Structure formats: structure tokens, C-alpha cells
């Protein structure tokens, strides 16, 4: 990631496909692990951990959506609803049956995968914008169902409080505890996705995205793989919803409305479709940018505006700058932040001899 690789030649397919392209990459990963597991939790204030926690959850959701939209080319705007399926499944299991998180979490993911396959069925017949509308219908139906079926939603408020997750008898109730909890699942999601996309399944997804007729001709069962993409993507979404539920201590479908699906689409488009690193960049960008703009404006804006004006200026400016930056980045590099990062890297790879 951060290293230079002069004089390295790969002579086998195995070497080319390896997770670590170079021996030094292993050390990069070790350094990153040390940074996230030891240095950050010790050195950083709880407030920043809370931001990282939100980013970790967003990474899981963005990875899931990227598998579907970026790798398989199936547009979905029902991602938020799949999160709510996971959230309510886990909440009901945790409250009614008193199950611990290591059961409710995969259960929430599996239930979301099941619903995802059902909502994804139209993808077998339609593509593109038509599919987007079909998944939009899925989003609205799921929202309506949760709102109107007390057996799922637990009453008129449609929210179920869940106890904090506990591990070895310790209740994970501070941002620091939850940091490790969420970091674990974010890393798990990243590693799983990295492996998924270089496997047979991942390559089939890419083939379906690039040209589904050609994919069918070379022997890929596109029905199976399209539904599999929906299932895996929804599984991630469901897990993301469960993580939100444990993080906030409540499952509430109003947290997972249409706007959330759009936010996650924005993440993967900004970050880069069809790339794991892009999903991470997108999740970081969308979560962090509003906060960064606000903190910046709180310090700088007070030079130009009074306290009363500031509140309106920050809110308006944040929207404006956020939208402007999205347009700017997409004009500079339509393939997203991931491509931008690769361009910068390849520039420095040969620096200072650019030819």
C-alpha cells in the first residue's frame, strides 16, 4: 500500500493473486494493525473513537453495497431496508430469547440475506434503472411492514431496546469497548470481501457485471450469481444494521429509511465502484467530511461571523461544500477516490523520474 516495489517480478499465477503482493506488504498490515489496535485506542480521545466507530459500521454497509453494485453491476436502493431487517431480527432475538450477539449478529445477517434474495428476484429479468425501481419498492414495502406489524416492531413506537453486547461477562458500553467490537467486524468484513472478490464467485460477479450474456455463454449461471450477489450484499447490510442496533442500543426503522440507502450509494460512488479500498474511502469520506467542515468552520468561521450567524452558515456551508466536493472529485476522477489514490501512488512510484 505505502511501499515501493522496484525489481519485483511475479512468475506464477499464485503470486499474482496473493493477498500480499510483496513481502513488505505484510509489514504494512502489521503496522496498520498496531496502529488501530494499540496506538489509536490508547492515544485518542473517546470522541474520536466514536467517529471511528461510525466509520467502521459504515464500512461494513458500504462493502456490502459495493459487492452488489460495484462488482456485480446490480443497482439497489434498498440497502437501508436490508439493514433494518437485520436490526429487527437481532433485536427480537436478543430481547425475546435473550440470545447473545454472536448468535443474533449472524442471524440478522442471514435473515437480511433471505429477504435480499426475494427483493433481488426481479434482477433476473430486469436491469439498470428498472431494477433500481424494483429495489426501491422493496425498501418501501419493508419499511411499511416493520411500521405496521407489531410482532416485528414491538409496538406502536416501532423501536426495540436491546441490551449492550457483552463478552466474557464484560458489558461493552463505552466507546472504547465498542471500538474493539466494531473494529473486529469491520476488519472481518474487509478481509472477507478481499477474499471473496478474488475467488471464483468474485470473478463470476465481475463477469456478470461486464457483460451478462457473455458470462452466461462461458458457463456462468447468471441467475445463481445474481441472487448470490443479492444474498451476500444483504448479509453485509443485515450485519451493518445489527451493529447499528448494538451501537445505539435500539432498533428503530426510522434510522434506516430511503435516505440511508442513498447515503450508502453515495459512499461507494465517491469511493470507487468495484473496489474494497474504495468502499473504505467512501465510508470515511461521507462520515468524516461533515464533521471536518464543522470543526474547521467553528475555528475559522468565528473570524467572520457572529455566534448566531454561525449556526446557519455552518449548516448551509456543509451541504454546499459536501455537494461541491462530490462533484469536484467525480470530475477529477470519475472512478472515485480509490482511483485517485492509485494515481497518486503510481506518480510517486516513479518519482522523481516521471518517464
Amino acid at each position: 500500500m505505502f511501499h515501493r516495489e522496484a525489481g519485483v517480478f511475479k512468475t506464477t499465477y499464485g503470486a499474482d493473486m496473493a493477498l500480499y503482493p510483496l513481502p513488505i506488504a505484510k509489514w504494512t498490515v502489521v503496522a496498520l494493525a498496531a496502529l488501530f489496535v494499540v496506538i489509536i485506542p490508547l492515544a485518542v480521545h473517546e470522541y474520536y473513537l466514536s467517529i471511528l466507530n461510525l466509520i467502521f459500521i459504515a464500512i461494513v454497509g458500504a462493502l456490502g453495497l459495493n459487492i452488489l453494485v460495484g462488482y456485480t453491476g446490480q443497482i439497489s436502493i434498498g440497502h437501508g431496508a436490508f439493514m433494518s431487517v437485520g436490526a429487527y431480527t437481532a433485536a427480537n432475538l436478543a430481547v425475546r430469547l435473550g440470545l447473545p450477539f454472536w448468535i443474533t449478529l449472524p442471524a440478522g445477517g442471514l435473515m437480511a440475506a433471505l429477504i435480499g434474495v426475494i427483493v433481488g428476484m426481479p434482477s433476473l429479468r430486469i436491469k439498470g434503472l428498472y431494477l433500481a425501481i424494483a429495489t426501491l419498492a422493496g425498501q418501501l414495502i419493508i419499511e411499511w411492514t416493520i411500521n405496521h406489524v407489531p410482532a416485528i416492531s414491538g409496538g406502536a413506537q416501532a423501536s426495540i431496546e436491546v441490551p449492550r453486547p457483552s463478552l466474557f461477562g464484560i458489558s461493552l458500553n463505552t466507546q472504547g469497548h465498542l471500538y474493539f467490537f466494531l473494529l473486529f467486524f469491520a476488519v472481518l468484513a474487509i478481509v472477507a470481501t478481499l477474499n471473496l472478490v478474488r475467488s471464483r464467485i468474485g470473478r463470476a460477479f465481475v463477469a456478470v457485471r461486464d457483460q451478462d450474456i457473455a458470462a452466461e455463454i462461458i458457463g456462468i449461471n447468471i441467475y445463481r450469481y445474481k441472487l448470490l450477489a443479492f444474498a451476500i450484499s444483504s448479509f453485509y447490510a443485515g450485519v451493518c444494521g445489527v451493529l447499528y442496533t448494538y451501537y445505539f442500543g435500539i432498533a428503530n426503522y426510522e434510522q434506516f429509511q430511503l435516505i440511508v440507502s442513498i447515503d450508502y450509494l453515495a459512499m461507494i460512488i465517491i469511493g470507487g465502484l468495484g473496489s474494497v479500498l474504495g468502499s473504505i474511502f467512501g465510508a470515511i469520506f461521507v462520515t468524516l467530511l461533515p464533521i471536518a467542515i464543522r470543526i474547521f468552520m467553528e475555528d475559522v468561521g468565528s473570524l467572520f461571523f457572529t455566534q448566531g450567524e454561525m449556526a446557519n452558515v455552518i449548516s448551509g456551508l456543509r451541504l454546499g461544500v459536501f455537494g461541491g466536493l462530490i462533484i469536484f472529485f467525480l470530475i477529477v476522477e470519475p472512478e472515485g477516490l480509490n482511483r485517485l489514490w492509485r494515481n497518486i501512488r503510481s506518480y510517486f512510484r516513479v518519482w522523481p523520474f516521471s518517464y
Partner: protein
Amino acid sequence: MTRFVRSWLGVAATTATLAFGGGQAFAQAKELVFGLQCDRTGPTANVGTVLCPGYQDYIALVNSKGGVEGYKIKVLEIDNEYKVPPAMEAHERFKKEGAVLEGLYGTPQTAALNKKLEEDKILGTSPGFGTASAADGKRFPYTFPIAASYWSQAGAAVEFAKEKMGTLKGKKIAYLFYDNPAGKEPLVILEDLAKAEGFELRTFAVPAPGLEMGAQILDITGRYKPDFIITHLFGRAPSVSIKELKGKGFPLSKVVAFVWGSAESDIIAAGGMGVAEGYSTMQFAGVGKDFPVLKDIEAMYKAQGKPAPKEMDSTVYYNRGVLVAALHVEAVRNAIKAKGGAAPTSEDVKKGMEAIKGFTLGGFVPPLELTPADHEGGGWVQIWTVKGGKLVKVKDWFQGNRPAIEKQLAADASKS
């Protein structure tokens, strides 16, 4: 120094502060930090852009008079855009800056923060948001609705209808509501009261975003023909309901709206005050400009050589912002007094909030009484009706059908 140089210095300063852990705790001696969540850009911006300036202005007024018991107040406002993750980030930021209390904004946001507030022992106020059962201070020790919940509003609406018609026996009441949890919440109270009072209740749900309700209104006015309508809508939906009811010729004097359908802007958007003659609204803060506290804010602006802000004209939401700020300040005042002038902690402020009683600000605040058990303060509302082009108070502070609400609260507490 030119502005350009100054701005670059600002950038450098920001970088430096970020590098050293982002904005040092500016809670020095004799300054208290209040956190305020707001929605100035999200789906409820029509409320937030007026309510939050009201809050800021009242705090500025208190500061201009020397602060509360010698302490200046610094308000840290964060726009959560009515989204849940930013609300959690905002709470953590408030905690980092040492906020002694925070104003919450939004029902899902309140739900998501209930637990965190309790763990961090910082009180949050949720006037008009959140669940009705949060009135129970034993179940939600750090959540303070401080204003009439939807249950209390339902009780008050039925009482008002009864007053208008003499008796409810055999009458038909339509309940037109926004189809979300907040909209459905009052149903239990309405159903209980329908049984007790002997009226017939039929519900009409309006799906989000509530801009299209022609079918429901036609069903109400054409087929059901109720004797009274209670509406509970949000955002742009209230003005649509006024317009549609008026269009179908239903007398607006037989309509009462819950608190989020009760602003001047809702009525003006429906075609103006003249059109909505007779439309009744429910309020948890005083309406209009005829209050000493608002005169003081105007005087404060005048002393600075500025005109009063235009938000003050939208008195319903502006006054609610002032009310929330006033209750926050009062809680802190109680806390400082209880500690003999020492800086209060967030737990002292909670005790101060639970000691608020007989604080009316010249009729601006209801005669609420907050106790460790009752964080709603009694569920007081006023009814204001459009008469001759403006909102006129027709019913002073009252608690409608209190026993029915208390019964539900007890039932809800025993369930959990």
C-alpha cells in the same frame, strides 16, 4: 492585518488545534457548556431554522445580563440533519466539551441516545420528540420530555372536543395522522377515551411525506362525516390538510391539530390566516410576542443596534426554542444554588431540572412541575385558534384527561 492573512492564520490555528486534539476544552472557570442538537438542513428544517435561533437568543440574553448566577453559557450547536449517526457524534462531542446538559432533536435521535445519556449521566431534553413513556423518570432517568407528550396531547385534544360539543356520547371523531411511530403513538389514549367517553373513533393514516392526502380527506368529509377531527401531522402535511379540508368545505372550527401542525407557517402555507379561520392548534409554549422575555430579547438586539431577527415573527417555533433554553437555564440555576455557587456537574443539573416548579416566565412557560418521577412536568397545553387573522388563545394551560395518561404510563412501566 488583511482578511486574507487572518483567514490563513485561522487555517493554521485549526490545523494546530486539530493536531493537538481538536478544540481544547473551552469550559474554563465560570463558563458552562450547553449542547444543542438542531436540524437546520434536514427534513424538519422548517422547525429547526426558527426554534434554534430562539434558543440561541435566550442564551445570549442571559449572557448579556451577566449569565446565570455568574456563569456565562456557551452553546455548542450541532446540526444532525435529522440523521441518527450524526446525533451520536454530536452527543460525544458535547461530552468531550464538558456539556452539563443537551437539547436533543428528533424522535429517532432521542430513541438512539436514551441509553447513552443514561450511561454518560448527561441529561437530554426532548420537547415534543421521543416516546411518551419517557415521561417516566424512573425508566428513563436522563431523558426529559419537559413538554406535553403525544399522549398528553391526545388527552387534551379529546377534552377540547368535549368542551366544544358539550358531550362526546355518540359523536364521531376522525383522527388524521402521519403514518409513522410518532403518529400512531396517541392511538392507545384515543381508543381508551373513546371507550370511556362513548364516542366513535376512526383513524385515517397519511403515508410519508404527507403531501398527498386527497383520498383520506375525501373519505373523512364525504363518507365518514365526523363531528370533529384531530390531526397529527408533520412537516408540510399540516398545511396540506388545512387546504384540503377547506377545499371540501369542512368547517375548520371542528379541527384541532397536535403541536407540530400548529405554527403560523403551516397556516400561512395553506393560504393564509384568513383562509384558516377557526382552525385550532395545540401549544406547549406561549404564542405571540406579548411576553416580557421576548421584549427583553428585542431590547437586547436594539442595544446592539440591530433589528430583531426575522425568526421572531414565527412565534410558535421561536417561542418553543426560548422555552427550552429557559428551562435549561433554570435547571442550571437550581443546580448552582443547590451547590452554593460552585460549578455544577451534569448530575447536579439533572437534580436542578427535577426541582423546576412554579417557573412560568409571565405565562410563557406552562405551570409544569418536574420531579424525579415525572419528567414531562404534567403534560400542559394551551389551545390557540385562528380568529380574525391571528392566533388567539381560547383555552389556557390545562391537563386533558390526565388519569387516562397516567394509567397508560403505569401500564407501560409494568410491561418493561
